[in-house]
């Protein structure tokens, strides 16, 4: 029998602190849709998505009602589109993107990930087709999300691909100039990209994954922030160890909710349950912010000295609580710092407290990297590539995932304010110091070799 205090404490989390399930992502392998003609390929792809995913939204809503907890986003992820375009040209890649976009819309999901190429060691002809198509497909579709893995612990960093991604990001921004370069918000460049990530824009179905699985992203930072504030209000002498404990307990509770919903959705859809991703994913909503957690921990200005240590403690406590709650933890599982999507981070950039360099330092102890950062529209492609290389180096050397989602806003200068709207929020264009002076390094190309696995200092 449950105790009344237990029930009331859950009600507090669910309804006063807005605990939700951030995303239920249905991951589908679509390699079996390969076909000799684009028409047949797209028909098979559409049929597969509709037959497997048509009930996703209805099932999530029904199970959400049963437990009184909203499933905020329902999404699709597919195996890398590069597998499907092997032997085809760019026209097929664009047709696939349109099919994914329409099928996702018909299923009622807002985003579909998997327009993906894995090029950490080299670029195949199919990868090249996918990469070249990115500016066009990101401009012409609404729901399709793209990702390119340019580095890994075992392969090192493919600097030719990094340089190419710098150029592609610029071209994508220009192709979506009317929307302030918004196409780039649907494109992530990764090192050590996880195969089972449920979060966009990096969700896709990697090698070794089942034919179909449900992957879950748990609730956002608002719940952790509220728990910390409640603990602080109770008073008494508190140390960072006590606050880490509070984060750990909250992460445990949140993860258990994610697993409960995920397993039931998977059962109802007749597919495997994949993973729970513990990541704290902020939204522009006030109170749902990783930045506010840092403030609750005593960092008055986000970006001030101490910010990296606070993010490290937060990320570690989230992992510890989540790992105890579920044996199926995966994906990115850390704390996101998506600047435009997090009201407090966005405000810290606007106030000049948070610099690109400090963000980079903070990403060395959390997932997932330099995320949703608006940069000046005239930033040279080689500088964008050099930023990607820096972030990839953090991932490769520390054996963790890092990603880059930069938005060069056409016509915008550092300090300008940009609105992306909805979940993507708003951002102040960040200053890139020393832009335009890394070109010679990037142009050398080739591969930065994989790091040594011993001598770990």
């Amino acid at each position, binding site marked *: *029998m*449950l*105790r*009344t205090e*237990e*029930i*009331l*404490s*859950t*009600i507090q*989390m*669910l*309804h006063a602190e807005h605990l939700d399930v951030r995303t239920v992502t249905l991951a589908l392998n679509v390699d079996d849709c390969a076909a000799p003609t684009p028409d047949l390929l797209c028909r098979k792809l559409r049929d597969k998505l509709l037959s497997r995913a048509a009930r996703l939204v209805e099932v999530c809503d*029904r199970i959400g*009602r*049963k*437990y*009184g*907890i909203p499933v905020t986003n329902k999404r699709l992820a597919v195996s890398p589109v590069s597998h499907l375009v092997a032997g085809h040209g760019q026209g097929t890649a664009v047709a696939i993107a349109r099919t994914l976009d329409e099928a996702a819309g018909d299923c009622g999901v807002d985003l579909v990930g998997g327009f993906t190429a894995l090029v950490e060691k080299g670029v195949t002809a199919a990868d090249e087709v996918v990469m070249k198509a990115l500016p066009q497909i990101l401009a012409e579709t609404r729901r399709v999300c793209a990702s390119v893995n340019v580095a890994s612990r075992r392969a090192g960093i493919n600097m030719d691909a990094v340089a190419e991604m710098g150029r592609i990001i610029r071209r994508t921004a220009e192709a979506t100039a009317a929307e302030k370069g918004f196409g780039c918000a649907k494109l992530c460049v990764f090192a050590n990209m996880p195969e089972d990530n449920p979060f966009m824009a990096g969700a896709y179905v990697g090698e070794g994954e089942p034919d179909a699985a449900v992957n879950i992203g748990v609730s956002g930072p608002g719940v952790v922030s509220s728990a910390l504030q409640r603990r602080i209000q109770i008073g008494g002498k508190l140390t960072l160890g006590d606050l880490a404990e509070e984060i750990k307990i909250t992460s445990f*509770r949140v993860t*258990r*909710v994610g*697993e*409960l919903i995920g397993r039931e959705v998977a059962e109802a859809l007749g597919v495997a349950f994949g993973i729970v991703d513990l990541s704290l994913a902020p939204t522009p909503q006030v109170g749902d912010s990783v930045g506010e957690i840092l403030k609750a921990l005593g960092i008055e200005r986000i970006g001030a000295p101490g910010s990296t240590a606070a993010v490290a403690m937060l990320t570690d406590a989230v992992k510890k609580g989540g790992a105890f709650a579920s044996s199926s933890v995966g994906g990115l599982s850390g704390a996101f710092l998506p600047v435009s999507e997090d009201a407090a981070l966005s405000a810290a950039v606007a106030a000049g407290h948070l610099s690109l360099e400090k963000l980079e330092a903070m990403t060395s102890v959390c997932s997932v990297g330099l995320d949703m950062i608006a940069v000046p529209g005239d930033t040279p492609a080689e500088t964008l590539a050099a930023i990607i290389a820096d972030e990839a180096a953090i991932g490769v050397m520390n054996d963790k995932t890092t990603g880059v989602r930069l938005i060069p806003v056409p016509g915008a200068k550092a300090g300008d304010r940009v609105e992306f709207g909805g979940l993507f929020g708003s951002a102040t264009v960040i200053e890139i110091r020393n832009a335009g002076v890394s070109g010679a390094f990037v142009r050398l190309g080739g591969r930065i070799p994989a790091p040594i696995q011993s001598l770990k200092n």
Partner: protein
Amino acid sequence: MKTRFEHAYVLDIMAEDRPGIIARVSGVLKRLGGNIDQCSQTVLEGYFTLILVVSLPKPMEPEDLAREVRGKEPEGLQVLVRPFDASVAARPAPAAEPFVITAFGRDKPGIIAHLSQCLAGKDINITDLYWNRTNDDFVMVGQVAIPGRIDLAMLQADLAAIAAAEGFTVRLQHENIFVATNQLRLTRAAKQG
């Protein structure tokens, strides 16, 4: 449940809470050679209540057993006794899922009556109920067993309609969400009770 001795009784005891009530009751039963087979106690606003299933080696009239337990003190215990019928608990319960109803709002008479009549009309059993009134506001937590044939969305809508008419908030959620967030046991086990 099989009791230790053949002659079994249900005792219901109420008193103003103070140290020694259980010592007194169990002492009487020990003197009679009896055994406590199950019991559950709660205290509400200074009032103690205890329900027990006890068994004795020799038969006794329920009223005689009540008199023994009650004692002679003027502030003695209020005691009700009836013979225990093991078949009551053994009756198969209809297949049902455990849910939790919570309600909050401005207190007024009749809220539990409205909600419980709605549930009773659908054969939904209340297995545990908590109500607390602080100043003018109330909190209600009810644990209920909902038969599988009940349409959950319809029931949630019915409860919401009562709450809207009476001016309070009500929620109906499967028990597993509370197990998952508070307890270390697996939620799958919750289905088996």
